[in-house]
């Protein structure tokens, strides 16, 4: 009973901290855009963790769907409709459809094989973005566009110039996606995913259609990752082929692991640590790749269960 109230308190504290972030972040040396980036990356890492931590399926190719969100939003705003919300919608739908199709091909694979195939599949989209120069801008990325203020009819929200307004757009999307994931995880569907994670064979014997559940979990996870991607494009007013390369997938996984895969908020903590560290290291040194690499190695050696994994708990949720 005590731990439940403790958990409730932690939930409230996290929501409050996120809600007020633009007001306290500058005071501790950050800036609002950094806050937006933390929330976007946290959304990506938490979405990945829906699959990784709660279904027990190792995807190492989530950057592909993140990148589809990025390019879906960017291309829509640049060539079709100058509207931020339409861009986000197109990005999410693109990612979701691609995930649904590719998911059908791969859901019956397991473990290492699944990981390898997801990594390799991700590269298709990378090469499309990289090679289709006259549309995507190729290696230089997609520039020459920017997010548009949201016109509600009765009022405009200027997310283009007002960083705080944009933060709250990001936060609203984050809150919606995270709430949906939390509700799903508490539903019978979510409990079934946990059952599959804990003992797939037993779940199968109980008559659970395991492949279909994994496919659904995969599509949900990829859809929210593309939402994060679309927001990321708006945040930078730019789309880079690097956003869908395999190293980005690794970054999402390390965020989830660093925070703690078995806890709902873990990936948020991991994303916050990673983004702030990256922001700091890349301004201090040219050799950020070595630092990131070393960081990966150290996390695996010393924090395999994540920051939140250190806190002892009686039973996994």
């Amino acid at each position: 009973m005590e731990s439940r109230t403790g958990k409730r308190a932690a939930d409230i504290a996290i929501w409050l901290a996120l809600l007020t972030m633009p007001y306290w972040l500058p005071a501790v040396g950050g800036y609002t855009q950094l806050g937006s980036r933390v929330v976007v990356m946290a959304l990506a890492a938490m979405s990945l963790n829906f699959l990784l931590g709660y279904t027990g399926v190792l995807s190492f190719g989530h950057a592909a769907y993140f990148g589809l969100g990025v390019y879906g939003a960017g291309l829509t705003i640049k060539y079709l409709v100058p509207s931020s919300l339409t861009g986000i919608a197109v990005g999410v739908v693109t990612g979701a459809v691609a995930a649904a199709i590719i998911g059908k091909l791969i859901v019956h694979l397991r473990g290492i094989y699944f990981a390898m195939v997801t990594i390799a599949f991700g590269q298709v989209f990378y090469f499309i973005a990289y090679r289709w120069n006259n549309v995507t801008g190729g290696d230089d990325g997609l520039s020459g566009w920017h997010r548009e203020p949201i016109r509600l009819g009765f009022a405009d929200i200027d997310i283009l110039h007002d960083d705080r307004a944009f933060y709250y757009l990001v936060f609203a999307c984050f809150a919606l996606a995270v709430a949906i994931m939390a509700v799903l995880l508490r539903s019978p569907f979510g409990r079934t995913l946990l059952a599959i994670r804990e003992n797939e064979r037993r779940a199968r014997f109980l008559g659970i259609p395991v492949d279909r559940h994994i496919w659904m979990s995969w599509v949900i996870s990829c859809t929210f990752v593309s939402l994060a991607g679309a927001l990321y494009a708006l945040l930078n007013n730019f789309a880079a082929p690097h956003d869908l390369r395999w190293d980005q997938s690794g970054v999402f996984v390390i965020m989830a692991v660093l925070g703690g895969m078995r806890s709902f908020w873990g990936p948020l903590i991991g994303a916050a640590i990673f983004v702030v560290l990256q922001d700091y290291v890349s301004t201090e040194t040219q050799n950020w790749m070595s630092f990131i690499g070393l960081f990966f190695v150290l996390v695996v050696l010393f924090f395999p269960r994540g920051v939140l994994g250190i806190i002892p708990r009686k039973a996994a949720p």
Partner: protein
Amino acid sequence: MTQLVLYNVFNGLIIGAFYALMALGLSLILNLSGVINFAHGGFLAVGAYLAFVLIPYLGFWGALVISPILTAVVGLIIERLLIRRLYGRDPLYSLLLTFGLAFMLEDGTRFIWGPQTLPFSIPSSLSSPLSNEFFFLTGYRLFMVLLVTAAVTALFVILNYTRLGVRIRAGTLDLETVSVLGVNVRILRNLNFGLGIYLAGLAGVLAAGMLGLQPTIGNDLIMPSFVAIIIGGLGSLPGTLLGGLLIGIASGVTSVYFPSASEAVIYVMMGLVLLVRPRGLLGEEGRF
């Protein structure tokens, strides 16, 4: 046109031989130890840069012999220090650690030798075309194909006829039994890792002579190696070889007709294989 197609098929075969050489090393490690070695490309770069350093002293031929051995030694040390801790753990951790290692190796080479492409001299006896009609058939390319053939043959001889090779193959099937029969599994895995890295180093020296030497050389070649393994079938070394050659030729032929898709085509092939035959062309049923 025929010449162009022939040129690209041959070119694809060479690239495919690279992929196969790299993928065979990856497969060896994956099959015995269950570790996906993301850093394989990093080791390839180490082999290439070591050869670059050694050439002024030993010449090309000396470097070709020594550099892969030194790379394998680096591999043995890294296995001892880091990779060993990953055995038996969730594959997630081996992916992440070798991923970090790949970053460090690429950035390390960039830090030491700079980001620019370095000149990599191959003997003049190898760099001239063999005939005017087949201008693309330089001695170096032919030499590469021969060397890769020799290396692959040697690998299969080692695996089939030496005590170490038989133990590696046995360990791939049932490591526990091999251990009970008195084989020191730690040493076996260590040597197996070294063997895989040796192949990466060899591929590195050859790749440097062909593609030029730059820090990204290894990590650009790693993804196709994954695809080669998946197409050939996880767990099957002949499959990996076949997969490497197939994707090399496919991307060579595609570059004749639709150059900008020459990279993407191998992933499309992978998708088709997974659709029709999920275990890969020569993979065993039910292993994964």
